[in-house]
């Protein structure tokens, strides 16, 4: 049962990431692309956690934690740049 659920979940997350990629490619304005990239990194965290579940290895959680932090910081930095034309005030 867990195997089937795992594969379904993996398929759904992969499809979600493809949709994000599509929005990042067409997205008419810069904030659209930025939002798509933001969603992409959040989904990639889930993908890495699922992969760690599959391999039964806890090391991958640290990678997920790092992605969460770096993704948030980069989103904020690019937003700041869009708002002010400058990152550090």
């Amino acid at each position, binding site marked *: 049962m867990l195997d089937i659920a795992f594969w379904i979940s993996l398929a*759904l997350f992969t499809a979600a990431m493809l949709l994000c990629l599509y929005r990042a490619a067409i997205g008419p304005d810069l904030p659209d692309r*930025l939002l798509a990239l933001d969603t992409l990194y959040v989904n990639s965290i889930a993908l890495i956690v699922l992969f760690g579940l599959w391999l039964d290895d806890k090391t991958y959680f640290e990678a997920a934690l790092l992605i969460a932090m770096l993704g948030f910081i980069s989103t904020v930095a690019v937003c700041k740049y869009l708002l002010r034309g400058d990152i550090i005030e």
Partner: protein
Amino acid sequence: MIGFYTVMEGVIAFFLIAGGAFAFIGALGLTHLRDFYMRLHGPTKTTTLGVGCVLIAAMSYFSLLHGGVSFQEMLITIFLFITAPVSAHLLAKSALHQKLPRDPRTEDDIEELREDDDEEETSGERRS
């Protein structure tokens, strides 16, 4: 008689599928809704909860297999739930700053979106 492990397996499977479904719906909203401000709703709410569900599933899985409670997943979940609103707020602010087009049905009689605005006055700053 259904054993404890079978029940836990069902719970974990449910969380995995629910997480995937929420993330997929969020991405669907990202592609299909009509303007940026509406697209913002899908990823900020549903994707965050979807990833939260997967992390809870992983936490129960490792607790079941290796015993003890593992807190790292909990930390990632809390971190995501704290940061998602902040990045959504900043994205909405930058969209307002660029005056992105709205869906015609939106009620948007606000000073941020008026054309003759002085931008420096309205782009309020949030520090936290």
